[in-house]
């Protein structure tokens, strides 16, 4: 066989294999999204975002408290985890080879692998029990612990990708190291850092197990950060395991809202961070 022909044949075959593999990977993604959309869209109405759940048997009602509860818990978790995670990541990248840094990096990797329910139990033991009850704050803390290693490690990787020449350019201009690190290195890595944060947020948004032990749930609006608070994933769980068909529909609707929320947050954050960095 002619070599030229053979090479083209191999090229075609490999291309086709890549295409098939891509489609196989996309099928579950789109079937999940499609399935949730189809099953959930029926339960979505303005009331879903405005009203509280009604008692069983009574039609209508919504999950406004869970939507806001989720945003509140995850938002507060970000307040803890983002600054700590990003700065820790910068430290890991900039002072990369001390024994301390290697220990922290190892600890972060181990922490990233800890099952989320274990983190929930831990917060239950050290926060919920001593403070006397479930609270949004405890839920945020549990989620923050889950987000922290992801954010720190992804920030580290991205800060490392910033070329040494930019650091030197800034230092050579008489810029102190801390300013060079924040305004040049971190700024240049920002779009990637934000993507890392969003991955952590998306994961935290969907976590159910740790919230069962910490924020628990609430049939009503939460009265404060120190009170049990409803969240979308816990509500999905509660409604989905219930025996009532109308609750099942609500659970599907909540799933759709949760997915859409994560998607919007990701896209929004990407746009914000990428806005001035598209120059690259």
């Amino acid at each position: 066989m002619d070599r030229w022909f053979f090479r083209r044949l191999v090229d075609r075959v490999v291309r086709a294999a890549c295409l098939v593999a891509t489609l196989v990977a996309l099928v579950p993604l789109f079937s999940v999204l499609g399935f949730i959309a189809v099953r959930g869209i029926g339960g979505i109405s303005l009331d879903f975002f405005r009203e509280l759940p009604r008692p069983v048997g009574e039609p209508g009602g919504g999950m406004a408290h869970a939507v806001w509860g989720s945003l509140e818990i995850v938002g507060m978790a970000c307040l803890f985890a983002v600054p700590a995670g990003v700065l820790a990541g910068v430290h890991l990248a900039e002072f990369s080879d001390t024994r301390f840094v290697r220990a922290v990096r190892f600890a972060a990797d181990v922490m990233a692998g800890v099952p989320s329910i274990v983190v929930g139990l831990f917060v239950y033991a050290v926060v919920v029990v001593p403070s006397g009850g479930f609270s949004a704050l405890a839920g945020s803390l549990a989620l923050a612990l889950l987000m922290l290693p992801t954010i720190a490690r992804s920030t580290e990787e991205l800060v490392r990708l910033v070329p040494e020449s930019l650091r030197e350019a800034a230092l050579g201009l008489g810029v102190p190291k801390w300013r060079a690190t924040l305004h040049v290195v971190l700024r240049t890595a920002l779009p990637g850092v934000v993507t890392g944060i969003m991955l952590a947020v998306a994961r935290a948004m969907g976590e159910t197990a740790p919230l069962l032990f910490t924020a628990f749930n609430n049939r009503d609006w939460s009265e404060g950060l120190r009170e049990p608070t409803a969240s979308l994933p816990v509500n999905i769980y509660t409604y989905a395991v219930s025996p009532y068909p109308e609750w099942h529909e609500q659970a599907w609707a909540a799933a759709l809202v949760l997915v859409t929320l994560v998607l919007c947050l990701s896209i929004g954050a990407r746009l914000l961070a990428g806005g001035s960095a598209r120059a690259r």
Partner: protein
Amino acid sequence: MSDRASAPRLRVATPRDDSRTPARSQPSEEVPAKVRTKALRAFYGKTEVLHGIDLAILAREVTAVIGPSGCGKSTFVRSLNRMHEVVPGARVSGTVLLDDEDIYAVGVDPVAVRRRVGMVFQKPNPFPTLSIRDNVLAGLLLNGVARNDADGLVEQALRKAALWDEVKDRLSNAGTSLSGGQQQRLCIARALALEPEVLLMDEPCSALDPIATARVEELIHELRQTYAIVIVTHNMQQAARVANRTAFFYMGELVECDRTEVVFTRPKERRTEDYITGRFG
């Protein structure tokens, strides 16, 4: 490109035709030096890469530093603005006098030294997140300094770097949208905007094509009137074209330093002659 490039290797086009004036072979102690190094040694960890350099850099002159790869040229210029110590494990001993002040004395802030001694690097490195204008102002912006006359300063620096006409209509574009040669001149403008007294250039043309190189060299001719310039180069023709004085480094030692035309036509040391005639390096 120009007839200079095709000239025979040893034909020297000196920037100033004063070869008949008595050559100041080694600047004696009386010659006022902008920068003077005394027994300058530099280390990476335990490896000593500069073995005691005594060299004077005069104001309003271009000093070229030549020598084979790994001879310590870059390390030398990087110790003149305390950039050497940025590398983990790197340190310096000896004295570097900037206007008779030791920049390595206890209590001297390296950040302050770097504002007086500007640096242009081998590869153009504009900040990708900043516009052309903000790249020029980077030294001020990154230090949180606001200037009322920022626009004037930008224009002035870009004019000095011979870039103004090419970029004046797109100052808000990203610095990285420029070509390689323009980026390098942008980096020069960025250094000039801080109004340094000395300009260090570490192989500023090695990533540029011949046309961009010629522009940067013209620029060095202009800048010589104001600044003390040290340029590291692998290209001996370039040293011959732009430098008043040339210092030849070999294996971490300063072999000789003299007026460029002397180094290229009547070197005192055999090693210098071997290098510039291409016998090694």
